[in-house]
């Protein structure tokens, strides 16, 4: 059995265009690219065959044995593959001077579908958020790749390439940039992938999923140099909107030190859509310590300055999250997020405690 799995893993690794995910620390820890595990070259969303195999053989603490035929690969047949995620939460929110709230919730359920119409060359991909609330399309694009898999172009609706594609849309670096899983945009993206470089350039409407309202467009460029123990990347984004131009630039990096995978990102934003230009800073440093197989301890420190010209308005957020993969395709999470902002704003000083059960395939 193990030899069969190893053969499948090696086979998938060879076949996969290099891949990565919305948990980029996996990629840093493995020294691989987002596209090693994901259909999407810039990470996030559906896992490819290698990603699914890795998730059921390497990731969990204990694997429930199934026969080779029963192992999940995501493939329905040679051309069609599906995937999905469901995150169910229980959380407790403590806001100063307010009654504490606790609730159970479905954070999100997403399904993915990919049709490989021409093997290795032409793909149609859909990512649909189906809960909570009604269904909403996140990504829908067609992608054409060159025969050597180095170049691709995709068109449709897609997440924008910029910085680390974290699972947590609430991270300051995602909120401040406005680029996350809730804000896909419509346009085209060109990508260039080599063994050590991953680069994407997207030209989109610049309306964060809304209808186009002006003739200006948004350009978002992300490039990353990847080595086995470290990686360094840069992102730039320009949104030419009639409401005001917006420039963003950032650096992001990953580093593996023994059992700890580090992520860092710093972004500087100028936004002319306010009465006076605002300059914003956002930063993140995250340590992911795999202290035991199947267990990850995530410690994150974040910084946000909503207006560089205003003193004493800076905010911090600290998170401590334990992530446990007891068996394949199941993740249990428990964590705390502590917000530290100006004292006169209660929400900027809230504490959030949560547990989460996350099934994925």
């Amino acid at each position, binding site marked *: 059995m193990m030899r069969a799995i190893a053969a499948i893993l090696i086979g998938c690794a060879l076949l996969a265009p290099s891949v990565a995910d919305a948990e980029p620390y996996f990629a840093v820890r493995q020294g691989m690219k987002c596209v090693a595990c994901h259909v999407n070259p810039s990470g996030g969303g559906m896992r490819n065959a290698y990603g699914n195999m890795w998730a059921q053989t390497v990731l969990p603490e204990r694997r429930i044995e199934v026969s080779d035929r029963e192992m999940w690969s995501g493939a329905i047949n040679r051309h069609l593959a599906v995937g999905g995620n469901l995150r169910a939460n229980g959380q407790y929110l403590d806001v100063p001077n307010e009654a504490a*709230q606790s609730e159970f919730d479905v954070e*999100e359920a997403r399904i993915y579908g990919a049709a490989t119409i021409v093997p290795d060359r032409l793909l149609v991909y859909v990512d649909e958020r189906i809960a909570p609330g009604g269904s909403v399309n996140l990504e829908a694009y067609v992608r054409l790749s060159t025969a050597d898999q180095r170049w691709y172009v995709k068109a449709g609706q897609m997440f924008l390439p910029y910085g680390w594609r974290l699972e947590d849309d609430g991270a300051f670096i995602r909120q401040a940039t406005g680029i996350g899983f*809730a804000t896909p945009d419509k346009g085209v993206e060109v990508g260039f992938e080599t063994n050590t470089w991953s680069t994407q350039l997207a030209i989109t409407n610049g309306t964060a999923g809304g209808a186009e309202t002006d003739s200006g467009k948004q350009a978002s460029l992300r490039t990353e140099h990847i080595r086995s123990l470290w990686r360094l990347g840069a992102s730039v984004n320009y949104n030419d909107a009639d409401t005001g*131009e917006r420039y963003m630039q950032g650096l992001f990096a990953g580093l593996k030190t023994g059992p700890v995978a580090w992520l860092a990102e710093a972004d500087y934003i100028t936004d*002319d859509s306010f009465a006076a230009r605002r300059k914003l800073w956002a930063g993140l440093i995250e340590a992911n310590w795999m202290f035991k197989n199947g267990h990850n301890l995530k410690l994150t420190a974040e910084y946000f300055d909503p207006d560089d010209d205003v003193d004493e308005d800076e905010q911090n957020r600290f998170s401590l999250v334990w992530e446990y993969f007891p068996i394949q395709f199941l993740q249990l999470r428990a964590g705390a997020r502590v917000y530290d902002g100006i004292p006169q704003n209660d929400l*900027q000083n809230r504490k959030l405690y949560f547990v989460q059960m996350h099934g994925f395939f």
Partner: protein
Amino acid sequence: MGTRTLVVCAACIVLAGCAGNGEGLDENGRPVEEGGGGSGVLTADFASIQANVFTPICTGCHTGAAAPLGLRLDEGVSYALLVNAPSTEVPGLLRVAAGDPSSSYLIQKLEGTAQVGARMPLGGAPLPQETIAVIRQWIAEGAQSSPQSTFPTSLRAAWPMQGAVLDGLSSIVVTADAEIDTTVLTAGTLVLMRSGGDGVLGSEDDIEVPAEIELRSLSPTVFAIRARAGEWPADVYALQISGGGPLAVTDLRAVAIDGDADGIPGGDYVLTFEVEESR
């Protein structure tokens, strides 16, 4: 852990020790002298909702040029984009249907009953039901804006912006900073022209564009202007609203609007923009 780990740990500590002490700021983190801070007590008026809900909570994402679905909730912009404005996700619904909170998409998103997408605030705790009840009350009472003490009354375009170049357009949205006498908003006081294709306004070949006006809010007055033909041919456009002469738009005290924004009543308001061939 090695030296590299210690360096990164030190960077974490430096990064973390930077929260502001809030000195000289209101509860939304803006300088007190700017105004706009809330009292901390939420009441069923727009200024209070803006200061205590939209600004501190919603503008975490819904702000600036990158606002999701184009919905900006920052002060000065939010009202015109909410009240009687169609939702992007469900165009058949108004974001705020004045007088009808249950049919308002804003309420449906806050209560998690919307047909499309997730409950707001996205990824955060739902607003307390008491907070939503206050917003409901504001809508049920007509979704009025808060009284303004501005004088004289001036106009500005919520959409498109002055000098904008657009791929297409459905309507122009103009907002006043107080209530104006809408009975005088007629073809005599409001003129929409296009250049006739030469890109030069004020020449003989200018063409008047028949327009219709849709009132979205009384106080402050917000109105949309649509081309009666339903389309906006590629051209350079000018919207002129009269603030002087015998046919002037006035406030409720019959004082002419400050159309040219010089601080003195009178003067025409002029908005120019260009619509390009759709690509």
